[in-house]
């Protein structure tokens, strides 16, 4: 059971993860990652998230399918926002349900590592003075985070 949504609106993680447990009593563990818009130096007015409509949803579904192939997970919810997101607000959530915690942790971290580098979203900084701080550059650390999944 996989739920993928790409939307401008905020979301409530508890509401969104309810689908993972509704009507069933065999779920033992849920791991939910929430990514927030972070303002490191007090300079940021908002992040502007651009995405590739259609491919964004498809790519998230492909990443979810890969996680399901690797671990015995019961359900996955991925929600990614686009548009203007001020500091402190949620950008993304990934939630995984499983019989046991270890699979849920692994799959959630895998999903985030792949989402960061494979899902077609791009962040631009909108600074407090109204100017653009430019496009956020891809991080070396994020590329490296992918590699460890090849050896596991």
């Amino acid at each position: 059971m996989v739920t993928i949504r790409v939307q401008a609106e905020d979301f409530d993680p508890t509401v969104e993860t309810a689908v993972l447990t509704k009507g069933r009593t065999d779920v033992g563990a849920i791991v939910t990652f929430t990514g927030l818009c972070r303002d490191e130096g007090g300079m940021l007015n908002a992040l502007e998230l651009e995405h590739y409509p259609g491919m964004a949803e498809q790519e998230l579904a492909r990443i979810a399918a890969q996680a399901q192939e690797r671990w015995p997970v019961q359900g996955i919810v991925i929600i990614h926002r686009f548009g203007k997101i001020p500091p402190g607000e949620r950008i993304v959530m990934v939630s995984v349900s499983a019989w046991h915690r270890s699979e849920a942790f692994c799959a959630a971290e895998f999903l985030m590592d792949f989402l960061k580098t494979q899902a077609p979203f791009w962040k631009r900084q909108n600074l407090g003075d109204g100017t653009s701080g430019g496009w956020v550059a891809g991080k070396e650390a994020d590329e490296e985070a992918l590699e460890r999944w090849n050896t596991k």
Partner: protein
Amino acid sequence: MKAIYFAWVRERIGRSDEEITPPASVANVEDLMVWLTRRGEEYAHAFENPKVIRVAIDQNHVKHNAPIAGAREIAFFPPMTGG
């Protein structure tokens, strides 16, 4: 085929998408980027460092040596920074 541009690739080129009709000699993604570069300074700027450009054909990630024959939609964008 339809070319689509995102983030700073879109900004440098100055448009988000366009119909393109490359000649048959343009066989793969790499060829196509070279061909686009010749369309003007804005394209040359967008593709000045082709190695960093990521490409999707019909909404699937592809490598630069992927053939473009039959593609309906080909997208060019910088490394992704979602999440």
